[in-house]
C-alpha cells in the first residue's frame, strides 16, 4: 500500500493498550473519566448523543493516496452509516461509531498507514498546509514534503502526546498565507532568500478561540534545514512553560501573554540553542513530484462527503496516480495531477456525475461552519443549519458573479472553531434575551486579512437574529457583487465601502417589534424545539488529568453543600491520587490511599482523624472540619508544580543533643526498617571508635532487627531498655 507518512513503531502497542482500557471500562473496572483521559488523545470524541463516538484521522496537509482513500472508505462503511467529514485541519472524521469499534478502526487504519493518535487532546495535532501547494502556478515552493516529514518526526516523539494543551502547526506555500501559518501555534511561510536558498518566515503563538492572537514573527527568514529544530524548540518551550492547571489559559499564546513578548522570545531562543546542540538529524524530505499542475477542486458542502460521492471522486482520481488527492482547509477535495488536455473532459464528467455544477455560487461551498450546537456540547446556535439556510436562500435566487473568492465563516459560539475571525464576512453565535425569552443571535464580524506581515482578524461590527441572517447576507452581497471591483481584495473593499454598507443594512434588521410579531425568531434554524440555552454542557475538547481533578473537587463541593460529608471525603481524597499514578478500584479505597500518600507528607497529620473516622465507619463528620480539609487539599493542588509534584511538609527536627551528656542522641521512632538501621549507621560513621550513641527505636521489628544488625557490623550494644511502647538503645562504635 502506498502511504504518505511513516507511522511510529509503538503505535500498535498503544492501540492495544487503548483497546484493553475499553474492555476494562466495559467490565466496570475503570470509570468513564479514566477512559476519556486516554480516549481523547487517541482521536476519539464522544458525540452529543451519549455512547456514540467520532474518530479523527491524521492526514498531513490533507494528502492521502488513492489506495488509502479507497480502503478508508471501506473501513468507514463497515462501522458507520454516516457521511465522511472533512475538517478544516484537512483531516477525515468518522461519525456515529460504537466505542468498541473505535479500537478496531484504529487497527484497520494502521494497516493502511493511517493513525488517529493526536486527533484530540493535548497533543500535536494534524499539521496543515496550503490547499494548492505543489500545484499552484505562483507559489514560492511546495511545502508538502515538510508537512509530511515534520509529521513523521512529531508523531514519533512521546512528548507530543502530553503537552499542556493542543499544539497546532501550519505551512503556507507563499506570502498569502493560505495555510494560515500566522494564526497557528507555530507557522511556516515559504520564502526564498537573495542567495536563492529555500527557507521560511516563522510565526509563533498565534491562534483563534479565546484571547485570539496573530502569531509573532520569530524569523523573517530561516533556512529550511531548521524546520525540525524550530518545531522541537517550540514544543519544548510549550511543554516547559505551558499552564497545565487551567486549560482555558493553556495554549502557547497564554505563555506569551504571561511572559511578555521579550521574555517569551528569549525563552524560545534558549530552547532553540539547546536543541541545536543536540544535533538532531535533518528532516527526511521526500519529494512527491507529480507531472501535471492541472487540478480541479470539488466543492463539498460543509465538508460532509457521502459514500456515494466519495466513490465517484475516487474513480476519477484513480486515473491520475496515487498522489492525486488532497483535502483542503476549506473542507473541499482537490483532484490533482490532471494533464491540461484532459481537464475539460474531466470537468464535464464531474458535472455529469453531479459532483460539480455548471455554474454556481462557489462561495457557498467554500463557506466554513463549525459543528455547532447539534453535535458540539459547547455550542449555542445551530451554525451548520444557518449555513444551510443561507445556501437555500441563495440557490433559489440567481447567480452572483464576482464573489468566488468570498470567505464566509460561522461559529456556533465565541470559540472560533468555524474560524469566523478569518472571515470576509462571518458570524458567531450567542443567545440574547428579548421579551423575557432567549433568541438565537449572532455577532457579525468582517474584514479579515491574512498574509505574511498582514494578518488581521475580522472585527465585530454588529449583531443580528439568526432568522434574519440569510436576508441580511442577500442584501449585502447583492450590493457587493455590483460594487466590489474585479481583483479587489475583500479586505480592501471592506475598508473602502463594505463596512458602511453592512452598518446600514443591519439597521433594517433591528426593529424590536419584529420579535413579538414573528415567533420564528425564538426557534433556531431547522429546529422544531424552541431555542433554549439549557443543557449546553461543558465539552470535552481536552480531556485530561486536570479535568479529572477539577471534576472531583466539583463533586466534593457539591457533596458538602448537600451535607453528604462522607461522600465528600471520598472525592476530596480521590482528587489528587491520579497525580501519583494511583488506580482506585473502589471509591471507598481512596481515603486509605490518600492517607498513605499524602497525610504526613504533604498534608498535616491532623487530617488523619477524618480518614480514620471514615475507615472506622464513624461517619459523624462536622461540616466545618470537612470544609477545612477540602480547602487544605485544594490549596495543595494549587501548589502543584508542572511535573505534578507537591511541596513536602517540613519534618520536625527529631535529633536532640542532650546537654551535659557526652553522648549523641537520636530519635529514630517512626522510621521504618531498614531505614532506621541505615540512619544509625550513618551517625556512627561520624563518631570515633569507642564513642557512644543513644537511639530510640520503635517496638517490634525495629528493636528485633537494628541491634542485631549493628552487632553484625562490629558495634557493641551496651544496653536496651523498654520505655512505654518504644526502646532506648545505647551503642558503642566498634571497628
Amino acid at each position, binding site marked *: 500500500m502506498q502511504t504518505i507518512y511513516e507511522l511510529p513503531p509503538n503505535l500498535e502497542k498503544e492501540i492495544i493498550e487503548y483497546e484493553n482500557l475499553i474492555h476494562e471500562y466495559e467490565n466496570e473496572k475503570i470509570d468513564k473519566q479514566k477512559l476519556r483521559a486516554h480516549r481523547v488523545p487517541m482521536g476519539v470524541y464522544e458525540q452529543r448523543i451519549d455512547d456514540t463516538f467520532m474518530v479523527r484521522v491524521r492526514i498531513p496537509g490533507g494528502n492521502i493516496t488513492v489506495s488509502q482513500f479507497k480502503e478508508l472508505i471501506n473501513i468507514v462503511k463497515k462501522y458507520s452509516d454516516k457521511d465522511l467529514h472533512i475538517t478544516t485541519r484537512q483531516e477525515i472524521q468518522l461519525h456515529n461509531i460504537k466505542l468498541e469499534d473505535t479500537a478496531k478502526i484504529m487497527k484497520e487504519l494502521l494497516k493502511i498507514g493511517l493513525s488517529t493518535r493526536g486527533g484530540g487532546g493535548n497533543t500535536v495535532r494534524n499539521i496543515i498546509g496550503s490547499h494548492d501547494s505543489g500545484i499552484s502556478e505562483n507559489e514560492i515552493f511546495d511545502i508538502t514534503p515538510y508537512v509530511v516529514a515534520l509529521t513523521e518526526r512529531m508523531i514519533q*516523539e*512521546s512528548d507530543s502526546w502530553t503537552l499542556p494543551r493542543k499544539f497546532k502547526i501550519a505551512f503556507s506555500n507563499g506570502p498569502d498565507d493560505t495555510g494560515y501559518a500566522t494564526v497557528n501555534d507555530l507557522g511556516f511561510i515559504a520564502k526564498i532568500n537573495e542567495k536563492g536558498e529555500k527557507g521560511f518566515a516563522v510565526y509563533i503563538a498565534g491562534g483563534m478561540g479565546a484571547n485570539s492572537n496573530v502569531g509573532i514573527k520569530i524569523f523573517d527568514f530561516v533556512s529550511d534545514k531548521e524546520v525540525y529544530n524550530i518545531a522541537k524548540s517550540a514544543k519544548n518551550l510549550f511543554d516547559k512553560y505551558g499552564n497545565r492547571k487551567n486549560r482555558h489559559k493553556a495554549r502557547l499564546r497564554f505563555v506569551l501573554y504571561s511572559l511578555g513578548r521579550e521574555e517569551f522570545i528569549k525563552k524560545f531562543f534558549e530552547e532553540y540553542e539547546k536543541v541545536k546542540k543536540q*544535533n*538532531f538529524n535533518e528532516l527526511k524530505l521526500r519529494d512527491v513530484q507529480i507531472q501535471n499542475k492541472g487540478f480541479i477542486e470539488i466543492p463539498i458542502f460543509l465538508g460532509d462527503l457521502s459514500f456515494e460521492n466519495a466513490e465517484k471522486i475516487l474513480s476519477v482520481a484513480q486515473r491520475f496516480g496515487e498522489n492525486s488527492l488532497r483535502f483542503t482547509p476549506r473542507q473541499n477535495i482537490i483532484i490533482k495531477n490532471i494533464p491540461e488536455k484532459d481537464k475539460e473532459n474531466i470537468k464535464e464528467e464531474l458535472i455529469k456525475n453531479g459532483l460539480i455544477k455548471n455554474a454556481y455560487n462557489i462561495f457557498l461551498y467554500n463557506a466554513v461552519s463549525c459543528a455547532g450546537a447539534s453535535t458540539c456540547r459547547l455550542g449555542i446556535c445551530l451554525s451548520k443549519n444557518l449555513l444551510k439556510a443561507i445556501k437555500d436562500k441563495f440557490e433559489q435566487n440567481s447567480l452572483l458573479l464576482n464573489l468566488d473568492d468570498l470567505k464566509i465563516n460561522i461559529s456556533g459560539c465565541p470559540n472560533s472553531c468555524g474560524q469566523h475571525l478569518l472571515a470576509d464576512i462571518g458570524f458567531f453565535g450567542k443567545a440574547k434575551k428579548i421579551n423575557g425569552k432567549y433568541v438565537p443571535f449572532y455577532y457579525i464580524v468582517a474584514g479579515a486579512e491574512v498574509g505574511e506581515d498582514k494578518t488581521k482578524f475580522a472585527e465585530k461590527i454588529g449583531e443580528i437574529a439568526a432568522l434574519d441572517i440569510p436576508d441580511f447576507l442577500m442584501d449585502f452581497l447583492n450590493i457587493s457583487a455590483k460594487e466590489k471591483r474585479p481583483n479587489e481584495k475583500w479586505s480592501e473593499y471592506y475598508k473602502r465601502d463594505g463596512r458602511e454598507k453592512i452598518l446600514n443594512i443591519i439597521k433594517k434588521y433591528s426593529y424590536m417589534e419584529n420579535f413579538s410579531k414573528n415567533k420564528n425568531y425564538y426557534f433556531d434554524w431547522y429546529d422544531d424545539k424552541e431555542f433554549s440555552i439549557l443543557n449546553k454542557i461543558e465539552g470535552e475538547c481536552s480531556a485530561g488529568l486536570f479535568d479529572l481533578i477539577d471534576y472531583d473537587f466539583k463533586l466534593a463541593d457539591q457533596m458538602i453543600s448537600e451535607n453528604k460529608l462522607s461522600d465528600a471525603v471520598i472525592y476530596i481524597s480521590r482528587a489528587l491520587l491520579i497525580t501519583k499514578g494511583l488506580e482506585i478500584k473502589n471509591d471507598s479505597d481512596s481515603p486509605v490511599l490518600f492517607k498513605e500518600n499524602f497525610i504526613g507528607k504533604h498534608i498535616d497529620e491532623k487530617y488523619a482523624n477524618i480518614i480514620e473516622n471514615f475507615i472506622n465507619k464513624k461517619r459523624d463528620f462536622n461540616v466545618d472540619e470537612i470544609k477545612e480539609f477540602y480547602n487544605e487539599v485544594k490549596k495543595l493542588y494549587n501548589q502543584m508544580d508542572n511535573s505534578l509534584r507537591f511541596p513536602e511538609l517540613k*519534618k520536625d527536627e527529631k535529633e536532640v543533643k542532650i546537654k551535659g551528656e557526652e553522648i549523641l542522641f537520636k530519635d529514630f521512632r517512626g522510621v521504618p526498617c531498614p*531505614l532506621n538501621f541505615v540512619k544509625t*549507621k550513618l551517625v556512627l560513621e561520624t563518631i570515633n571508635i569507642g564513642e557512644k550513641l543513644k537511639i530510640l527505636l520503635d517496638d517490634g521489628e525495629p528493636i528485633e532487627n537494628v541491634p542485631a544488625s549493628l552487632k553484625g*557490623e562490629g558495634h557493641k550494644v551496651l544496653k536496651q531498655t523498654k520505655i512505654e511502647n518504644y526502646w532506648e538503645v545505647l551503642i558503642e562504635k566498634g571497628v
Partner: protein
Amino acid sequence: MILDDNDILRYSRQIILKEVGGKGQEKLFNAKVLIVGAGGLGSPAGLYLAASGIGTVGIIDGDNVDLTNLQRQIIHFSSDLNKAKVESAEEKIKAINPKINVIKYKERLNAENIASTIKDFDFIIDGTDNFPAKFLINDACVLLKKPFSHAGILRFDGQTFTHIPGGACYRCIFPELPPKGVIPSCSEAGILGPVAGIIGSVQALETIKFILGIGNLLINRLFIMNAFEMNFRIVNFKKNKECPICGENPSIKEIKEYEQPVCELKRN
C-alpha cells in the same frame, strides 16, 4: 556531600552494606567515570552507575540513535530515534538520578582527543565495538596510568577484564590488532542484547568496586562468558614481559590509532 533524607532512602540498600556505608556513598558521589560508547555495553553500565550515585558520568559517542540500536542499547528508547546518543543517554541518566552530573562529548574518541578527554576521569569504561578503538583506549590508559575496564562481545560470547596501572594490559594478551578476516565483522556476527547487558553490568560492578576500593577486581583475570552453553569462567593471565606497551622494552611510546578494517555497520 551531605546525604539528605532522600539520598539516604535512595541508596539505603547499598549504604546498608558494611563495605559501602555513608563513606562509600560519598566516594561514589565524588567519582568521575567516563563511558566510551553509549551502545550495548555503555547502556547498562551508564544506567547502573547513575542509579548507584556516581557523581559525574562522562559519555563520549559521535552517533545518533538508529532503529537497529534499540535491540540492545537499552538506554535509548523509540522516542529517541535520530537524537544524538549522548543526549538520549543523558536524559535517561537524569531521569533515573537527577543529581548526576553528565558530561557529554558528541564525537568519536581518537588519538588527538583521547588524552585530554580521559585526563580528568578516575576510571574509564571501554564500551566500544571495534579493535582500533580498544587498542587506542588501552594504549592511552596504560601510558597515562588510568585504570579502565575492557570488554568485548560477539554473538553469544563476552569477555572483560580490568586494568589498573601496574597490572596486565590488553596488549599483554593481544600484542597487535588482529588481521583482517580473523574476527568476523559485526554484520556477519550479530549479538543478543542480554549478552551486552551482562558484560556491561560486570563493567559497572568493577567500576563501583574500584571506586570503593573493595573486593577482588578482574586484574590479571579474564572473565569469559559463553551464553549459548551458559558457561562462565575465569582465565588467569600475567603481565607479559614482551608486551609492546607495558613490557620491559616497550616499543609503543605514543598514542596513535592503528588501522584495521572498520565495521561497515554502525558502531554498537
